[in-house]
């Protein structure tokens, strides 16, 4: 028997960045909000960094991939094509991201105009500026204003930058020598106390989140406010369907309490899906019905398609000077946006950025950091370790991958989660443009290593021996994209489903293109914009009318 709950204004599925911002915004505007999250709260003291075995634990129980850690709150991702990373809990994947916070650039929203291998967004850079500013304030962003590689909108940061460290200084000098752009990386990690959170203590282990709350995780930055404003958050609540009525409107969400197995139904006037670029299309496809036989909001057949991860590759380099490679927030040194815009003379469209990052603990460094340049087993082990440990730096090369309809999320026919619901199936192959872009970017990173006089350089293009590219898929974008017309997109400019107008999608799956940088700042800005619009015009949404009218 299913437990029926009292109707609310909005039910949100997923308590990550999009869900947290939406819940806070709507509740603070007086709407009755329930959020359903299949994970639980993360207890900061459960994180591994204060344990001697922190490096092992981080690769096991705290692995970025749900397929490795296999927690009950996770669902598997059937794939041979990428290592899809996510976290299912209050705060979502902001529980274990690096907090890297650059903004998309104006041309990212106009790729249809620029080259036509991806569509234009239905909104512009300028539409998001006020919402990036809100995100910066609420997360607490550290950085330096005045970057000439970006429009002059980011005039101040709530926090001064984190320590640059030897990594930042050495690479800045190398980029000066090359005559290339560099700038301190903006991050959602605060250097000093801010809104009750302590400043970062440079512990180096941000990939498993932050024990002290210095990193902007929506479980810390947004959920306390949402709950104080009256939002109800139900954890261990795994949504299996968004339900619809005969008129084709969403009427609420059916979910399973993963602790008891009890089924529930939460009715609502408006449904918001905020489950990330894999979870959102999975839920929409699981919500198929007689009226929506191809899945909910999918008359365009675009749900699950156009998956983007970014092209990724690593260049590890080791120099004679000490680099403090085991201390400091991992991704905070600097970013180079010299090559972020399209220049077809390079042989491809779109751009790349270079991110200068740190190499974490001794075990990870002995295993070869990000390039598998491990200390050999046997007699030469300690000699290699002595030479390399504390002298390494890494350049992460991000490229803007093209959306492709065959890069997609579907439902697995063979794997299920712990509730018996179908797992997600992920297919992803880079395009010719992606490959050229990635290779070219890796060559530029090697140029930096040469400018530094590195004594050892290793490139990891994330391809296996057969040439199969298997990226670390930190970013899950594009699978319910926004567009100008209903035939080639899933949601409109207000992140409202074209097919089911009282259904909204508020997460990275709506992104039309991926940019060449980390997306959480832009996912957050989009979430503020969509949520504020929903609050402003809730009556329109509740009666199932178009926000475009």
């Amino acid at each position, binding site marked *: 028997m299913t437990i029926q709950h009292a109707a609310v204004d909005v039910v949100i599925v997923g308590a990550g960045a999009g869900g947290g911002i939406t819940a806070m915004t709507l509740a603070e505007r007086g709407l009755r909000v329930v959020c359903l999250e299949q994970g639980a709260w993360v207890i900061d003291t459960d994180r591994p960094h*204060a344990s001697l075995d922190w490096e092992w634990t981080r690769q096991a129980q705290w692995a970025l991939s749900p397929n490795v850690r296999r927690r009950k709150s996770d669902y598997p991702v059937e794939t041979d094509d990428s290592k899809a990373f996510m976290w299912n809990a209050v705060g979502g994947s902001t529980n274990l991201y690096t907090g890297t916070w650059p903004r998309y650039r104006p041309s990212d929203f106009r790729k249809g105009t620029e080259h036509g291998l991806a569509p234009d967004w239905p909104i512009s850079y300028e539409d998001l500026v006020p919402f990036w500013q809100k995100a910066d304030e609420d997360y607490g962003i550290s950085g330096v204003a005045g970057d000439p590689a970006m429009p002059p909108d980011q005039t101040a940061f709530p926090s001064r930058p984190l320590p640059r460290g030897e990594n930042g200084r050495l690479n800045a000098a190398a980029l000066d020598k090359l005559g290339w752009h560099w700038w301190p990386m903006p991050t959602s990690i605060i250097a000093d106390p801010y809104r009750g959170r302590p400043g970062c203590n440079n512990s180096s282990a941000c990939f498993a989140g932050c024990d002290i709350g210095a990193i902007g995780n929506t479980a810390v930055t947004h959920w306390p406010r949402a709950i104080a404003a009256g939002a109800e958050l139900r954890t261990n609540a795994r949504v299996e369907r968004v339900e619809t009525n005969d008129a084709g409107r969403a009427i609420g969400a059916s979910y399973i309490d993963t602790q008891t197995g009890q089924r529930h139904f939460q009715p609502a006037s408006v449904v918001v899906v905020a489950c990330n670029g894999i979870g959102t299309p999975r839920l929409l496809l699981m919500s198929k019905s007689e009226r929506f036989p191809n899945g909910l909001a999918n008359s365009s057949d675009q749900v699950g398609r156009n998956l983007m991860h970014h092209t990724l590759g690593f260049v590890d380099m080791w120099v004679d000077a000490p680099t403090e490679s085991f201390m400091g927030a991992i991704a905070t040194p600097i970013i180079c946006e010299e090559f972020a815009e399209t220049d077809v003379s390079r042989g491809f469209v779109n751009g790349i950025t270079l991110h200068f990052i740190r190499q974490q603990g001794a075990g990870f460094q002995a295993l070869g950091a990000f390039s598998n340049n491990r200390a050999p087993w046997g007699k030469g082990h300690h000699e290699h370790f002595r030479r390399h440990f504390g002298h390494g730096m890494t350049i992460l090369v991000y490229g803007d991958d093209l959306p492709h309809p065959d890069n997609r999320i579907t439902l697995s026919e063979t794997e299920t989660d712990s509730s018996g619901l179908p797992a997600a199936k992920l297919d992803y192959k880079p395009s010719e443009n992606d490959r050229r872009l990635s290779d070219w970017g890796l060559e530029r990173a090697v140029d930096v290593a040469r400018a530094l006089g590195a004594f050892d350089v290793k490139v990891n293009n994330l391809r296996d021996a057969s040439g199969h590219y298997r990226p670390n898929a930190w970013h899950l974008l594009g699978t319910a994209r926004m567009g100008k017309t209903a035939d080639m997109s899933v949601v409109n400019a207000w992140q409202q489903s074209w097919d089911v107008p009282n259904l909204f999608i508020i997460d990275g799956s709506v992104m039309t293109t991926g940019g060449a940088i980390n997306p959480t700042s832009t996912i957050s800005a989009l979430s503020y914009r969509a949520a504020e619009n929903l609050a402003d015009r809730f009556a329109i949404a509740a009666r199932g009318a178009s926000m475009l009218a």
Partner: protein
Amino acid sequence: MAGLDTDTQGVLLARVVDAIIPGDALFPSASRVGVSEKLLERGFRTIGPDFAGRLDRALGLTDAASDEAIAAALAAWEARDPAGFEDMLTIVYLSYYEALPVKSAIRALGHDYHDTPQPGGYRMSAFDPANPHENPQHRRGAYVPTDDVRPVDWSALGDLGKRVG
């Protein structure tokens, strides 16, 4: 060899992990810091309940194997099954470098490497606005404003959208 079922087998496994990470004047050997036991336990949990048996079969060693035979067996495994060997090696390396004596040895090299990154964190010099390698003084960098985005001609570049795997 089937793990640590007998003293003899435990001694052989210790010799195997020491062949992977031997000791020297500063660093202890892997077996001295308990890597054998952690290898079996973590292999059991993450690779499978039959991990000890797999290890046994992969190496094919007798209790009386010489040091040279152990090294040769490891090299043969690495060549035959790189992925399986890498999984084992990952456990050995991470188990070794979490040991307190190893962390002490790293500090003896002159690195301020802590036993755990939290709760103390690391002391680093604060951002220095006067340092041009921390606070950029250059004016390099550019972007294309929204209204200036124009079509580019990539017609000579081939089928850029083709999936290539």
